[in-house]
């Protein structure tokens, strides 16, 4: 059913939601379907401080109408109930390469770099 694809190239951290590092992970949900966790695995995250760039090998998200990408800060490894919501962006069909800056009032400042494939 997927008609469109977007590649997430990297995420730049311009500020963290707490002192030091955020333990960042993404939940990507295409057309409100299965929630895909990045990095893959259980309770996994990527530690990011201001100035860090998280570059992805090849994350391609296929969707029909939209794909919602949510950024989280994992606060404790064993309980996602305690994760901190950083921000989210809903990608709808488009073209080209771009970036979107996401901020919140706790200091989180992340920029997602992406490329539409289809």
């Amino acid at each position, binding site marked *: *059913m997927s008609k469109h694809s977007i590649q997430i190239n990297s995420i730049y951290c311009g500020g963290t939601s707490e002192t030091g590092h955020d333990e960042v992970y993404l*939940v990507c*949900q295409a*057309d*409100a*379907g*299965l*929630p*895909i*966790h*990045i990095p*893959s*695995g*259980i309770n996994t995250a990527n530690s990011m401080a201001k100035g860090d760039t998280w570059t992805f090998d090849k994350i391609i998200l296929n969707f029909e*109408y*939209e794909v*919602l990408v*949510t950024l*989280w800060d994992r606060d404790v490894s*064993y*309980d*996602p*109930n*305690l*994760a*901190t*919501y950083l*921000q*989210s*962006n*809903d990608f*709808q069909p488009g073209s080209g390469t771009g970036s979107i800056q996401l901020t*919140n*009032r*706790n200091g989180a400042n992340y920029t997602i770099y992406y490329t539409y494939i289809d």
Partner: protein
Amino acid sequence: MNTTINTQIANYAGIYQSMSSPAVAKSKQPYTPTDAEKKVFTEAKYAWETYSKSAAGKAELKTIAAMDVPAARSSVGDILDNPAFAKLLQMLNTLDLPASSFSFGVTMELELILGFEAVLGVAIGIGDSKNLASSEFLTLGLTEGIDEGGLVGVQFGLWKNAPADIGGYSWSTEIDLGLGAEVEVAGSYTASGGILGATLTIGGGEEDGADEEESYTFILGNQEGDGYLKPVYQPRKNNFLIITSMKCDSTQSDGAGSANEVYFTFQADGDTLYHYPTYDYLSMESGDTWNCGRSVWFNETVQVNAYDEDDTSGDDPIGNFTINISDLTLGGTKTFNSTKDYSTTFDTVKYTINVKLVAQNVQN
């Protein structure tokens, strides 16, 4: 159809789908069950037939089939308390088995765009692991066709690892124990071809000659309110909208700074209640716009209720929004005001949401 358990297991299915499965060795150790293992599986089959045909067994299975994951995972093990399984449990205590765990779980088929087979069960220590703590687990594998959906049968397992260590990838290959066509016995292997154990599956999903069927077992957490169970996956309906943004014109004064800690719930057609963000909240001050981008499948109506999270006195409602399909036009965006004004004499509270209809009368 138990949609609650479907949406809860979908979170695990998403994690499983997002992982890259390791390469599998071309050769593997031949697996020949011992006589003691054959006796256990033979008795397990007999016990299950006795139990599942009994009035008490039918009633218990019907109850479990309607439960959500937390209730079902704590109830599955109780099935073994039925007298039908007494001899089987005695055999596990007395036979010399080359195994460290015995598992028992109900099998389910789920349609989550892709078809999944799931086993929700409990593993108990036997042999060298007899006194170790039991574990509750969820095993998931892809399947090409969903025959019935819902709870379809049972799986027994004998494992080399202790109960807490049966998690991770495995690949199963059918072996013939002569127990009949209605059951499937399979050896279970690691990616490198090492033996993990063997399973006996009764009911649903058996595929003759199945070879190297991949599955992944999650050991379920023991903390209350396992976070992976908050619903995220939505079954498809006729129409699809996106709550593109929420705007705060005026916060509720909650005595805790100038911001509200905002989250909202949404419910399509009175079905499953979802939270967004799934956990936590977004701090908003007057003038802020949250481009939340939350998509929702629905047929007729979506109820969105926004709250200011308050750890000390309970969460405070800040806006209720009722969206009907008749309010929307395909491709258009409409602003919704709260159907209830939460302002007081000294405190103006105003939030609005923007909603875009992106698909209508979808053929699912």
